[in-house]
């Protein structure tokens, strides 16, 4: 675990991973978009609007996955006082918030033609909206303290408290009688979705996953670079101060 706490080792490792994850993201996105927009059949009920699914579902999966990842990184930071884990959680939050927003926005666009309404106060939609607020609260808490370690600890505890929302999102379509359809891919008894639609969906999910990895690594590197810059500026200011006195 602490092998990866060393920033310079992380920088080396991430520099080695970044080109591969970027390439994987671009390849999967191109192939996935071809299958999603051209090679897959329209739905017999929803016709062409079903193609919104290839963005909506991966974004929703990633919104939840990112939160689980963020909570895991927070727990690591809290338990082992792992500074890089705190930074990882901080870097993941805006990406997760964006995924959540995309899932909500595409859901609204999809809901208008199929359900006849942009928004319903149903358990799935409401719990995802709560997820967005949790992300925003998490990010706001990071910015509320001058002391970085204090901010990291507080934000980590909030992330762990907020994890109660994840099972609610996942099972909301089974516990409540919702307008949102129940799970059709990750369910006991195998997917009920047709293979011709499952393939582009999984390709797009892979593209989203590698997009997340790429952006996450870039954001952590940016954060580390920012800290290095602050240290350099601080030292320079102190040196110039010493010069004058």
């Amino acid at each position, binding site marked *: 675990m602490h092998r990866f706490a060393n920033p310079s080792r992380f920088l080396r490792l991430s520099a080695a991973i970044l080109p591969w994850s970027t390439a994987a993201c671009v390849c999967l996105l191109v192939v996935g978009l071809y299958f999603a927009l051209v090679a897959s059949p329209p739905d017999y009920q929803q016709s062409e609007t079903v193609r919104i699914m290839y963005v909506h579902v991966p974004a929703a999966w990633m919104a939840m996955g990112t939160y689980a990842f963020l909570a895991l990184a927070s727990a690591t930071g809290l338990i082992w006082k792992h500074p890089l884990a705190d930074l990882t959680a901080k870097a993941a939050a805006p990406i997760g918030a964006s995924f959540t927003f995309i899932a909500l926005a595409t859901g609204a666009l999809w809901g208008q033609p199929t359900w006849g309404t942009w928004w319903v106060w149903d358990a799935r939609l*409401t719990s995802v909206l*709560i997820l967005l*607020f*949790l992300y*925003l*609260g998490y990010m*706001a*808490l990071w910015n*509320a*303290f*001058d002391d970085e*370690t*204090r901010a990291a*600890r*507080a934000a980590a*505890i*909030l992330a*762990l*408290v*907020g994890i109660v*929302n994840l099972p*609610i999102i996942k099972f909301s379509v089974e516990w409540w009688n919702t307008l949102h359809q129940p799970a059709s891919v990750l369910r006991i008894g195998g997917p009920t979705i047709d293979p011709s639609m499952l393939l582009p969906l999984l390709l797009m999910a892979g593209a989203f996953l590698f997009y997340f990895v790429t952006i996450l690594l870039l954001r952590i590197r940016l954060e580390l670079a920012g800290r290095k810059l602050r240290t350099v500026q601080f030292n320079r200011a102190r040196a110039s101060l010493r010069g004058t006195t």
Partner: protein
Amino acid sequence: MRTGRRRRDPLGVRAFGTVLARDLRLARRQGGDAGLAVLFFILGTVLVPLGIGPEGALLSRIGAGLLWVMALLAALLSLDRLFQSDWEDGSLDLIVLSPLPLSMTVLAKVTAHWLVTGLPMTLVSPVLAVLLNIPPDQIGLVALTLLLGTPTLSLIGSVGAALTVGARRGGVLLTLLILPLYIPVLIFGAGSVDAAVAGPGAKSHLLMMTAMLLAALPLCPWAAAAALRHALD
């Protein structure tokens, strides 16, 4: 000395009582906070019929939900002072040093918060329910949901209050952190009245609210205590 005190107060009942009494005394002497929450609850509720019109059918339809939203906001009002004032004058450092487990101290402070906000709100809610034209047979149910729900609000709120100790603009931030977590309590609290009217009965909602209270009772003071320890590091 310390073991002697332990023997006289093995379960920390007296220490718990001391923290509780201290917070209640502070709430009474400083005035403001305690009465303010109830006053906000009453005034906020009274404003709504003035805003949307005094139509009885409409008010009785939205009354329960309205009382719940107001209770949520009123509970938030004094929450940011729960630990912040103790942190500012330094007494929090001393409270943490006491032999009473910090989570129990948090529970004592939460109890005090509920006694000066949640409980009075529950007590005045039947009067407000009459003003809102809620049918007489549902008034008891509304008060019961508030009785079950407001302690949960105070408990969840203590986590947020502990997390924002020493934060910039802690009060606004606290609202952002806590309101999403309040939503399940609101849904079941307000929903129980709808369920009772619609037919299936409020029992499952009330059981769910009790479950949330029982889950929050050990977990929230624990999380809040962890947050407070980090705040004082």
